[in-house]
């Protein structure tokens, strides 16, 4: 059976390189927002609970801490 034909019929957007611009933008914005939230929360937050909870990680990962 012809694999190429199958791929075309069954999976119109199968591999990452074939993502449309809007799909990439949506995925990128969502990933960036969640990713930055996590990084700010663990590495940069001023709140003492976040600071103290993540203290050793901040030093170990090279974030400015004190």
């Amino acid at each position, binding site marked *: 059976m012809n694999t190429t034909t199958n791929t075309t019929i069954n999976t119109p957007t199968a591999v*990452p390189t074939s993502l449309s611009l809007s799909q990439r933008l949506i995925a990128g914005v969502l990933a960036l927002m969640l990713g930055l939230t996590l990084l700010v929360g663990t590495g940069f937050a001023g709140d003492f609970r976040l600071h103290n909870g993540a203290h050793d990680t901040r030093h170990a990962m090279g*974030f400015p801490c004190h």
Partner: protein
Amino acid sequence: MIRNLFAAALFAALAAGLLTAAIQHFRVTPLILHAETFEGEGGHSHGEAAVVAGHEHAAGTAEHSHAAVEEWAPQDGFERTAYTALATILAAAGFALVIGAVSMFANIPITFANGLFWGAAGFITFSLAPAYGLAPELPGMPAADLFARQLWWVGTAIATGAAFVLLAKTRASWAIAVAVALIVAPHIIGAPIAPDEPSAVPAHLATEFAAITLGTSAVFWAVLGAVFGRLNDLFAARAATPIGAIA
């Protein structure tokens, strides 16, 4: 597709984060705890808030005072280790999602074939370049204003990362010139300079810490990039396999 990106990022972060947390537990945290014993009075202390009278200090540990009322911090021992491991995994997820986002915006897939390049770029962007101006710091070391350092750290990471994306997209002469400028500029501007005070932390502890944290970050980024790429390949292959067909 969005689900695949998030799944690949989060599983890769879990793998890299757990390994890094283990290395931190055995090689990094002991140095932090050791350094904290040198923290001078008036400096803030960590990991002691929940400790009540009657706990024992390890042999050779300097005496320190316990304020009656202190802000919350995880208790030394299992609790502190657990928080550190959790924070490391969450930070790993943050880094994974950020490079996943960059891969989407730049239209450069993260694959197993190029995963180590992503890892190397991530290491230089988020660890090496910031450390070039702001050496990994131990508690008790003199340091410049926190916000100024955070600002320089973020600016350096953005400029360095942008240089790598530019070079990945084009090797035109103008692009190389701009990339070099982006990488060098933060270091010409210069990181905030620490006040010229004697450090309470012994030099051998600080140098060991700098070497081990940078080495650990290199391992973290290599694993993150490789696993992220491998998972992306797997998900792409699965999506490309027609339903019912056996590969």
